[in-house]
C-alpha cells in the first residue's frame, strides 16, 4: 500500500493528503491546541491525548528553549510555569512525544510576555540576516508563523519592518511548515510587488496564522517569495527589474508590511484587485497554470495579502515605531513596534501631531521653497531621499549625498492633507562615504541621505518627493493609522503622527 501511495504522490502531489499515517500509529494531540500567550509568573495546564495507544503509555514532555519550567509532569498532562520575571517577549515550544512511538509528537508554542508588552514587538537595526553584507538602517524583527488553525509553527528572524508597504512576505526557502496555498480555478494564485520600479518580489499566496508579541492574525494571506519552476513570471510584474528572489539579493528573510492600508491592493477605500471590481486586474495578483502561464486576476479581499495588524482582534488600528537617538552611527539600534493607537495604556497618541494623508497616501513636504506633494514616511527606505534643491555635493562613487564638512543643517516643513497637521523638521546630512567608512561595522546611521528626482521640481510633480526613511524614525515615536479603521477621538484614518 505504501508503495502504491508513493506512486500516486509522484503523479499528483495533491494526493498526499490521502496517504497519511495508517490506523495503527499513535497520534498525539494537545489541549490547548493553538499557540498561547502568557504573562510572567503565569502557569498553563496542558493535556495530551494519544489515540491508537492501546497500553496507554501517554507522552513525555520537553521544553525548548529552557525558559520557564515544566512541573507535575505525567503521561497525560503537564504544567508550564512562565519565569517570574520576563524582561523581553520570548517564544517557547513545549513538545509532547508519544512513549509508544517516539516518532509521533505534538508541539505547543507559547509566547511569554513581559509585563505590559502584549502589544509590543521588539525590532532591531542590526545589519540583517545576510552574513556577507550589512543592511544599513534596516529595522528587523522576528515573526512566529503557523499553519492556520494549528500549532505547527516556525519563528523566522531577519524580517524587515516596513511602514511603506503592506503584508507579510517570506522567502519560501526558509519555510519548514506547510502553509496552505490559495488557489483559483485550479491554478495557483501568485502575488507581485514592485519596489519603486527597480526590484520585484514574486511568489505564491498562502494562508497562515501570524503571531506578533501577544497579538494574533488568524488565517491571513502571506506571500511566499520564490521563482516559479513551471511557468514564466509575467513581464507586467517583472518590468525589467531585478528579481529579488533570494536573501542575498533582498537582504532580509522577509518583509513585514505594516503601512496605512489593510491589504496590499487597497487605496483610499477602493480595491481594484477585488473580485468583481470594474476595470482591468492590476499587475498584483496572477492565476498561473503549470506549463501554460499566468494572467492578472482578481480575488476576494479576504484572500489578498494582508496587513497582519488589521487582522488582529484588538490593537488593530495602527502601530507606533519608536527608536532611541543614535547620533551619527551606532553598532545596532533597538526599538519597538507597538500595536494599536489609543487602545491600551501604552499606545496613546499623547502630544504627537496628526498629519492626514492624501488619497495616494502622501503628504506635502515643503523644502527649499518647493511643494513636494508626493512625500511620505517610510521605515523601509534606509535613508532620507529628497531632491537636491539646495545643491548638496554627491558622492563620487554612489548615488548618495557627500557634503564636505561641516555637515548640512537643513529644515523642511511637513503639511498634512486638507490642512490637517503642519510642522517643521530639522535634519542633518553628513557625507555618506565618511560616516560609513569611519564606522565600517556599524549598522545604524542617523544622518545619511540621497537624491530623489531632478530639480526644478515643478511644485512636486514628477519624480520629486521627500521620502522620510529610517533616519527620521530615530529619536521619535512615529504613528501609522490604518485606512478603514478608527482611532478614538482622532481624525479619520489613514494618517501619520509624530
Amino acid at each position, binding site marked *: 500500500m505504501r508503495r502504491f501511495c508513493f506512486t500516486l504522490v509522484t503523479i499528483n502531489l495533491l494526493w498526499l493528503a490521502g496517504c497519511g499515517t495508517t490506523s495503527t500509529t499513535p497520534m498525539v494531540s494537545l489541549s490547548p491546541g493553538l499557540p498561547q500567550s502568557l504573562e510572567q509568573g503565569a502557569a498553563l495546564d496542558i493535556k495530551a491525548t494519544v489515540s491508537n495507544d492501546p497500553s496507554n503509555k501517554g507522552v513525555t514532555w520537553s521544553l525548548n528553549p529552557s525558559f520557564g519550567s515544566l512541573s507535575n509532569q505525567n503521561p497525560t498532562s503537564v504544567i508550564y510555569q512562565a519565569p517570574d520575571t520576563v524582561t523581553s517577549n520570548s517564544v517557547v515550544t513545549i513538545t509532547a512525544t508519544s512513549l509508544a512511538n517516539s516518532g509521533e509528537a505534538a508541539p505547543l508554542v507559547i509566547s511569554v510576555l513581559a509585563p505590559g508588552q502584549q502589544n509590543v514587538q521588539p525590532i532591531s537595526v542590526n545589519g540583517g540576516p545576510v552574513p556577507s553584507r550589512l543592511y544599513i538602517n534596516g529595522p528587523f524583527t522576528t515573526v512566529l508563523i503557523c499553519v492556520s488553525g494549528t500549532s505547527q509553527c516556525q519563528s523566522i528572524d531577519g524580517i524587515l519592518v516596513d511602514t511603506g508597504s503592506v503584508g507579510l512576505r517570506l522567502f519560501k526557502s526558509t519555510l519548514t511548515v506547510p502553509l496552505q496555498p490559495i488557489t483559483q480555478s*485550479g491554478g495557483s494564485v501568485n502575488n507581485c510587488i514592485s519596489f519603486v520600479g527597480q526590484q520585484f518580489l514574486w511568489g505564491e499566496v498562502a494562508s497562515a496564522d501570524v503571531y506578533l508579541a501577544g497579538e494574533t492574525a488568524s488565517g491571513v494571506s502571506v506571500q511566499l517569495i520564490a521563482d516559479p519552476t513551471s511557468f514564466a513570471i509575467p513581464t507586467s510584474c517583472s518590468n525589467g*527589474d531585478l528579481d529579488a528572489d533570494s536573501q542575498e539579493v533582498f537582504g532580509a528573510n522577509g518583509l513585514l508590511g505594516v503601512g496605512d492600508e489593510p491589504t496590499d491592493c487597497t487605496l483610499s477605500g477602493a480595491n481594484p484587485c477585488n473580485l468583481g471590481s470594474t476595470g482591468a486586474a492590476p499587475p498584483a495578483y496572477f492565476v498561473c497554470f503549470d506549463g501554460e502561464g499566468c494572467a492578472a486576476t482578481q480575488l476576494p479581499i479576504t484572500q489578498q495579502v494582508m496587513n497582519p495588524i488589521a487582522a488582529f482582534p484588538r490593537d488593530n488600528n495602527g502601530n507606533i515605531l519608536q527608536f532611541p537617538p543614535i547620533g551619527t552611527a551606532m553598532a545596532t539600534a533597538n526599538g519597538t513596534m507597538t500595536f494599536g493607537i489609543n487602545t491600551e495604556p501604552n499606545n496613546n497618541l499623547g502630544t504627537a501631531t496628526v498629519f492626514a494623508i492624501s488619497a495616494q497616501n502622501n503628504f506635502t513636504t515643503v523644502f527649499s521653497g518647493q511643494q513636494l506633494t508626493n512625500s511620505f514616511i517610510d521605515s523601509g527606505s534606509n535613508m532620507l531621499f529628497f531632491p537636491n534643491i539646495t545643491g548638496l555635493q554627491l558622492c563620487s562613487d554612489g548615488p548618495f549625498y557627500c557634503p564636505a564638512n561641516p555637515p548640512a543643517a537643513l529644515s523642511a516643513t511637513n503639511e498634512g492633507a486638507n490642512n490637517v497637521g503642519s510642522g517643521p523638521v530639522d535634519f542633518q546630512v553628513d557625507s555618506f562615504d565618511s560616516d560609513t567608512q569611519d564606522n565600517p561595522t556599524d549598522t545604524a546611521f542617523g544622518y545619511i541621505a540621497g537624491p530623489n528626482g531632478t*530639480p*526644478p521640481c515643478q511644485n512636486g510633480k514628477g519624480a520629486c518627493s521627500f521620502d522620510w526613511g529610517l533616519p527620521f524614525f530615530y529619536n521619535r515615536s512615529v504613528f501609522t493609522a490604518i485606512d478603514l479603521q478608527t482611532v478614538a477621538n482622532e481624525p479619520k484614518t489613514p494618517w501619520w503622527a509624530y
Partner: protein
Amino acid sequence: MRSPFVLPTFSAETRFVVLHVLFVMFALSVPASASLGGRVDSVEGDTLHANGNLRIKDAGHYTIYEIKISTWTTVREFVSPAGVVFGVAWEGQFVPDLKQFLGTYFRDYSAMAQAEKSTSFGRRPLRLRLPSLMFETGGHMGSYYGRAYDPELVPEKVGEQEIY
C-alpha cells in the same frame, strides 16, 4: 489505509478558457499606445479617445497624450510636432507595463536598473542616465511615479523638467 480523496481537477481546456478569458479582459482594458521613440498612431488615438481613456492636451511646443489605464495608473506620452514620443511619465497605484511604454529603450533600462540595484541593500528611488535615455522613478506601494525620456529627441524649447 484510507482511500485517497480526489480533489477537483481541471481539464486543459478549462485552464485554457480561464487564462484566455483573463488575458482578453486584461488586453481590452489596457489601452494600446505608442512607445518611447515611436510615432503616435492617430487611429489608435481616436479609438482610445472614444473610450474615454485618452485626453489630448496641446502644450504649445508639444502634445500630451494622457492615457488612463483602468482605475489605477495614468501614463502621459509627450509627443513632438513631428509625431514622435520623446518622453513618457506615469503615476498611480501600480507601475504600468514598462516594456510596452519604453519600447526599444526597455532593454537598456532593464540592464541598467538591474546593475544599479544589485550594488547595495535597501530601497531607494532610482535615477539612471544614458546618452539616449533618462529614467527616474520613486514612491511607495500604492503611489508610484516615474518618467523616461530620450534627451536626443526632446524638441528645442522644451525643458526636461516639463516631462512629468
